């Protein structure tokens, strides 16, 4: 089998709270284990859906892959090469290959720049156009790709709706012809009917440009729709991963099952949302030993409070981290 485009191994990001000298002496220092040993891969042309609730570390994972923040430990391999060993020059080049689309279309576009400015800047940074005319043409091309027109090019972000701004953000990501696009909740802030438009657009663009997507979201129906494979995160760890049909039809991990049971489906004939987990989401700050779901899990046994379950392959391409399956 061909090598994956992106491979992430045992990726860790810990943040220190109260790390100053006085606090450390007083024993007040805490560690937020935002991403705590995450491994996955994505093949060229594939979409991996990374799903989890707030605080699970999915957004941090997205930022780590683009090296917007540096990992505490672990490997990030792009086309088999160790991305963390890249020189600053090489990393700069790589920014053309890996792009990020953010959640909030209202804060990700500079309000003081026109659409022309916003979309031509990446071209300038990476020397992708020689003169103003080339830039202008390319920007128009990009706007067309995302379903917008020449009448939009000299306007400012505030003149557009959320959906349109997100299209501009997508156009910006595409301007450097990336291989991997990381969407960090790219449709969560949009109205339902607009979400559908943007999801379709993303699918179209993927087919057209053989893009690879890491799609981060908390909405399970959206993840179901757009993903080929899915990884479920909980408090810094991947608890289950596999092909989308497997995860949705035959989930094994108690947390995955709880997530699926809790989603209210837009059909009164379907069962209402159910709670299958007690308590609140565990904290990533200095977590206790053992499995993160211990304390809420209906299957928990004594080992769950002592040893962290490893992510193991239980069926072809289906991995789960649980002691009791």
């Amino acid at each position: 089998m061909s090598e994956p485009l992106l491979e992430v191994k045992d990726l860790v990001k810990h943040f220190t709270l109260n790390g100053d000298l006085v606090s450390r002496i007083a024993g007040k220092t805490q560690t937020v284990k935002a991403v705590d040993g995450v491994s996955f891969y994505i093949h060229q042309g594939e979409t991996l859906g990374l799903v989890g609730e707030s605080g699970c570390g999915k957004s941090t994972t997205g930022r780590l892959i683009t090296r917007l923040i540096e990992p505490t430990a672990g490997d990030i391999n792009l086309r088999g090469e160790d991305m963390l060993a890249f020189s600053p020059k090489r990393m700069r080049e790589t920014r053309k290959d890996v792009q990020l689309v953010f959640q909030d279309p209202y804060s990700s576009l500079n309000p003081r720049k026109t659409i022309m400015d916003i979309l031509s800047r990446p071209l300038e940074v990476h020397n992708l156009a020689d003169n103003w005319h080339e830039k202008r043409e390319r920007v128009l091309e990009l706007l067309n790709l995302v379903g917008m027109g020449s009448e939009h090019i000299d306007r400012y972000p505030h003149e557009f709706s959320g959906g349109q701004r997100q299209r501009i953000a997508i156009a910006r990501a595409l301007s450097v012809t990336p291989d991997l696009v990381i969407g960090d909740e790219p449709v969560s802030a949009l109205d339902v009917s607009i979400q559908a438009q943007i999801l379709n657009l993303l699918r179209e663009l993927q087919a057209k440009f053989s893009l690879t997507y890491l799609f981060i979201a908390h909405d399970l129906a959206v993840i179901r729709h757009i993903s080929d494979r899915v990884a479920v995160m909980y408090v810094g760890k991947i608890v289950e991963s596999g092909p989308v049909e497997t995860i949705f039809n035959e989930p094994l991990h108690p947390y995955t099952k709880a997530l699926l049971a809790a989603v209210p489906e837009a059909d009164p004939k379907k069962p209402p949302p159910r709670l299958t987990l007690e308590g609140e989401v565990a904290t990533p700050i200095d977590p206790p030993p053992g499995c993160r779901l211990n304390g809420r899990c209906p299957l928990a046994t004594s080992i769950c409070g002592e040893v962290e379950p490893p992510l193991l392959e239980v069926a072809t391409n289906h991995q789960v981290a649980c002691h009791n399956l």
Partner: protein
Amino acid sequence: MSEPVLELDNLSVQFNLKRGVLRAIDSVSFSVDKGETFGLVGESGSGKSVTARTIMRLIPQPPGEIASGTVRFQGRDLYEMSDDEIREIRGQNIAMVFQEPMNALNPVFTVGSQIGDALRTNMGMSKLEARERTIEMLQLVGIPSPSARIDNYVHEFSGGMRQRVMLAMALSCDPTFLIADEPTTALDVTIQAVILELITSMIERFDMSLLFITHNLGVVAHACDKIGVMYASHLVEMGTKDEIFANPQHPYTKGLLRSIPRLDVQEKFLTPIDGTVCNMMDPPRGCKFNPRCSEAMDICREQIPEFRELAPGHFAACHLHDQPTV
């Protein structure tokens, strides 16, 4: 038949701004009966939140203005009441739960003092009585160790817990009517399920009526008896939950239902509604949905359609249902 608990009749609310007049709600009529849960559904700009605030008399006038219509609670016109009378209604009879509990609850007072304040003001309780009742309420909504947490500040609670606190505050004065404006939108899906179940059980337990405002059709499918769909300031369709989902009559409702990704099946492409919602400062002539409607006719671009009853209890505002002229 007993009269409805809440009745909106031809209500229109506009905002008189420097740059023009913004009509936020236009001729909206609906009612909620005792013990009923009414889901008001719509996307951004539909006017659903303004509707909730209008009912509670929370719209500042100016720049807001009730251009027409009435809001009646238990038969009484809320806008005919004095400030004292409406203050009594708010908190004691009608309570409201908002989307962002961090913004709705006061960060500089403890949770206990805020709920206690409402109890002392509205129910005339003593400090001690109020404290006891507050602990009771916190227990009821599932806050662990309520006698300890009563003295915590809002920031010491998680999102889901804050929403429970808000619910406790809303329910503390035994209201007969609860308005919940996107109460679970900011919450994770597992916490959402908990809060929804809590709201439903409280409604049943205290025999309350509920107006549930949301953009999430999944939530109304399970939490509401009746549904009203709003688009660009108009109520475009209304009916029982089963009718709306099984037999939607308005093209917007149909489009909305079709555009939602399903949990049980992966479709290659979704069926979105084309275009975007109109500029409410300069809306199109006729039906405001017409630029996006696949079934638009000439009359749609000229006349705003009437909100009429198509079948018992099922209303829609669409020219597709106009009687042919003889």
